[in-house]
């Protein structure tokens, strides 16, 4: 029972974190057909930027500035780099973002070294939310989930209740029609790309203070996020929310039970 409750809590918060990253990826894919290989790098960039600036401006300010910075980087990529390869097809866009992911990872190694950095949550957040079955449950996990929920509520309200949101949704369904109706679709695309990147950056800034912050965090999360968006059906926000929670729960139970594909394989005699 204890295991089930803790694993469920861990799984849901991790799933919400995954969704913070996969939401941007799937929104961008749905609207523009661009599978952004560098999306998880934005997550890593968010963590490192927050780590670098939080000693100067403080943890809370860094939580705001880091996503903004990452969002600007994303807008720059959408505005200046992607259009150059667009005419060669989606595969070339994928290749370009793949190259960018490589560059971001190497830049981070260059500036911060090829080892984990000590990015910590502030002392005022380091307490246990409650004690369950004699175990202290860290408040920060709930904080990660809380930030995610607040973000999605805001995003959802923006998408459904504002004019811009309606244009974004129109542009997702029928970009040419929306453009013909006089909306500035390139600007909408740039904005969405930037928002998606900023969301990933925020996820990184928040999660980096809890999970290890190292130059591999991008590729490690990236693979999981790709699985999430494929399982969720590329381009579907609801699907990726469901898949994020599912995979979050799955991985937290799998870690807890030390269950793995390899041990399953060894059951059928493929292991050693």
């Amino acid at each position, binding site marked *: 029972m204890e295991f089930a409750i803790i694993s469920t809590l861990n799984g849901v918060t991790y799933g919400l974190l995954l969704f913070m990253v996969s939401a941007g990826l799937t929104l961008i894919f749905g609207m523009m057909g661009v599978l952004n290989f560098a999306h998880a790098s934005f997550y890593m960039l968010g963590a490192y930027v927050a780590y670098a600036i939080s000693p100067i401006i403080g943890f809370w300010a860094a939580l705001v500035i880091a996503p903004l910075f990452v969002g600007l980087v994303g807008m720059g990529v959408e505005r200046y780099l992607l259009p150059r390869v667009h005419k060669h097809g989606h595969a070339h866009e994928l*290749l370009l973002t793949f190259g960018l992911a490589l560059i971001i990872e190497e830049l981070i190694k260059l500036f911060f070294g090829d080892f984990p950095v000590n990015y910590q949550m502030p002392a005022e957040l380091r307490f246990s939310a409650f004690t369950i079955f004699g175990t202290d449950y860290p408040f920060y996990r709930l904080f990660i989930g809380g930030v995610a929920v607040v973000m999605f509520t805001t995003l959802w309200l923006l998408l459904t209740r504002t004019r811009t949101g309606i244009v974004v949704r129109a542009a997702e369904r029928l970009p040419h029609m929306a453009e013909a109706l006089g909306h500035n679709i390139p600007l909408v695309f740039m904005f969405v790309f930037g928002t998606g990147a900023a969301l990933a950056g925020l996820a990184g800034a928040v999660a980096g203070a809890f999970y290890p912050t190292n130059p591999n965090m991008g590729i490690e999360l990236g693979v999981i996020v790709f699985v999430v968006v*494929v399982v969720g059906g590329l381009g579907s926000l609801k699907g990726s929310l469901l898949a994020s929670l599912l995979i979050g729960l799955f991985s937290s139970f799998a870690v807890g039970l030390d269950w793995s594909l390899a*041990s399953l394989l*060894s059951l059928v005699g493929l292991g050693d």
Partner: protein
Amino acid sequence: MMSFRSVLLLATLLALLLAVPPLLDLAWQNALVNVLIASLFALAFNLLVGQAGLLSFGHAAYFGVGAFAALHLMIAIEDGLAFPTPLVPLAGAVVGLVVGLVAGFFATKRSGVYFALVTLAIAELIHALAPRLEGLFGGESGIGSMRMPFAGIVFGSTIEVYYLTLGWVLFCGLGLYLYTLTPFGRLTLALRDNEQRVRFLGYDAHSSKVIVFAISGMVSGVAGSLLAISNETANYSLFATDVSAQVVLQTFVGGSTVFFGPVIGAAIFALFSFLVSDLTRSWVFYQGLIFVLVMLYAPTGIGGAIQHHIRHRRQLDWPALAAPYAAMLFGGLLVAAGIVFATEMVAVMFGEDYARTREAAGGALIPFELFGATWSPTGPSTYLIPLVLLGAGIAILVKVRRRIDAVWAARGEQGSKTQTLATTGGIQ
């Protein structure tokens, strides 16, 4: 079809590959073995990417299983199996083919970015499983074996390994080239262009794609087993994402629309990593930068650019191009120098060594050594030099590009059409 001139070129290259290596030292011989292996891997990869239009992000899987298959066979030979050592890559071929058939069956059910993701997932799965499967992949440390003598050849020296590798690479490379001349080779190109139409002409598109995938896996497996023969060891890191990434970088920088393009990319990257990996820790960064620049400004890669020039050699005003091209080279060198300077400076100033010396000096921004000179972190010249190099280089490139475009535009109308077609080549 090959012209007489390209046959002559290839013959010269072959003669050099045969005659020169014995004169080189061990490190160079080893580097050339790696160049050959990378070239074959890139050719196998490009069969899928350039010809069938299927972008795989997980080709390390087939390269890796080839290496392990070869090592298992070598272990068996050590234990007394009568099998000729030069034919060990056959093990890689068979296993690469089988794994390619299975993986290809699933991956080719989708196309475009879905295909890319599925191949990535398959490679990641093997990468995650391999260290746990002790018997097959030897756990974290991997497995190793020795090359056994065969027919009087002991395979003890690097040059013997070199010639063995060269033989296999030429054999497989020729095979892949001949492949393009067969009916199935043409079908592969048709699949890239328009899969739907292929089906309406009576072909089973899915089976065809599985076969292409499996052949690519087979040759990748041969390349992997050549690496295993050369290194006499392998571990699960062969399945890592960066192995898959390397072949993507090499193939596209070399040019995926030209048959020999990937060889150019593989040779350049493999040689450079041999030459500079001791000098800099930022080699992967430079690779990524080169790749992105090629994607942005020359999407058909080096091979595509060369082919483009050869195709238009008669229409072009070469004397008019000479000066701008020289200026472009100069501008490019300035930009490269600026980037390298800035990067290496960052590498030093943010490095651990510098942090330690600073600590010893009480936190002061003390001068550092770079490129045989001493630079002060507070001196303006330290920052001005890379900035000026970059700025001047970019200015030259921008200016010279207009002139080059003008010369190109002055050539016949006919050329421009083939150019747009050539540059839209590649993947679906």
